[in-house]
């Protein structure tokens, strides 16, 4: 069971995520988040010493959430193609059910690197997520389904594609629901990465 302080931290993270998504990162202040949670600003600082630290903790929270989902897929006894489909489905589902998470990742984490420079060097804050993606690739190559290549060329293709689709969805440019693209996107990604 999570202790009280941890539980409160998660409440703050989820509230901040919503506010950042609706009002924007720079327009949302710590007092705004405190007010929304009916907490005093002073008490907020007991949990997060600064907005930058809160920002880093949020990205770690998202990484742990997505990493856990990916791990469940990685541990299933299914083909790499099937795993590819499940990862696409999971990512799009998260974008629908918790749009603020993917939104934060794309619009705040990737677009405001200066905020994360000191606390999230390299892949430090997205370690859980990247680790599972690496395992998906490694196991795909090891069993002969995927072609051996540089990790980042494969990673960019996969995550760039998914991120791009969610971004288009967020901009209301996509004519169809994200789920309707799962089949084609799975086919495209798998074909691009496949050893065949």
């Amino acid at each position: 069971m999570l202790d009280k302080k941890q539980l409160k931290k998660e409440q703050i993270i989820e509230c901040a995520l919503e506010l950042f998504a609706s009002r924007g990162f720079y327009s949302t202040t710590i007092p705004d988040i405190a007010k929304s949670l009916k907490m005093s600003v002073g008490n907020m600082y007991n949990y997060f010493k600064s907005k930058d630290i809160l920002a880093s903790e949020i990205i770690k929270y998202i990484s742990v959430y997505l990493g856990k989902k990916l791990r469940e897929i990685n541990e299933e006894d299914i083909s790499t193609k099937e795993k590819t489909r499940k990862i696409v489905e999971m990512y799009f589902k998260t974008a629908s059910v918790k749009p603020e998470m993917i939104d934060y990742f794309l619009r705040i984490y990737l677009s405001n690197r200066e905020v994360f420079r000191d606390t999230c060097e390299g892949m430090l804050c997205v370690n859980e997520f990247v680790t599972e993606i690496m395992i998906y690739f490694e196991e795909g190559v090891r069993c002969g389904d995927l072609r051996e290549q540089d990790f980042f060329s494969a990673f960019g293709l996969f995550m760039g594609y998914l991120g791009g689709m969610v971004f288009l969805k967020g901009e209301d440019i996509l004519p169809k629901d994200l789920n309707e693209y799962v089949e084609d996107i799975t086919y495209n990604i798998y074909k691009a990465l496949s050893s065949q």
Partner: protein
Amino acid sequence: MKTKMKVLWLSAISCNGNTHSFFNYSQMEQFLEDFEFIYHPVIDSKYLLQDIVSQDIECDVLLIEGAISKEFKRADLSIVDIIQRYSKRVKKIVTVGTCATFGGIFRESGYEKTSGLHFDQEKRVDTFKSLLDKTISLSGCPVHPEVLVNTLYAIKKDITLKVDEFLRPKEFYAYTVHNGCTRNEYFEYKVDNHNFGELEGCMFYDHGCQAPFTHGSCNKILWNEVNSKTRAGLPCMGCTEPSFPRQNLFSTKKNMAIPEHLPVGVNKRVYLTLAGITKAFKIDRLEKKLFDD
């Protein structure tokens, strides 16, 4: 007068590399006061190989160097028959080197069902099953002379050596070659800007080093008392393992940037998590030459 322990050094399909390594033992005079070779293929000894195969000569320890095949003969007798004959009378049998233990490089030649005494790589061979309790495996290409000599002294002094699943004494094989490597800092922070023969950089990530998953004391009991492969700037080639020799010994097999063989006992997820964290930091000191001048 002290009783010398009588040793038969039997050479099977071998390059005599373990013999050469043994000659580098620094306390040879002392050793020869305590042990006597009734036969050795290179050292002058009391008996000829012809005598060994035609008579039953008293012997305490049988050392086997080289891979074993029923078809391979010494003095017109199958090596298997010679082993059978002497194994009954000796107190202990020691397989000296990776060929005698697992088949090694001669197994790779494909010559007539060649293997080690009890193992064909990792697989158990039953030909000499009854000798399992008597056998100690000293794998290595070659075996470090101190490992061989200290094992013989343990036999002489009736010290029971704890052994691993391949009958290798844990005293020497419970460690990995990574243990004691002077490049451990480079391993920890994933710095592999290595050039062969130079002092800097870890060779695990790109240059094929097998030290983190190879059992042996190379960085604990140094070669010629001064150095080891990895300290000198050459990757560990995993010569004590059943899989020796693998292919492409100077490059690390990777699947999308992840080494196919990870440090022994380390889960892939754990490895990647740690690697992801350390990779995030750039340690300037480890990027530079150790001696700038």
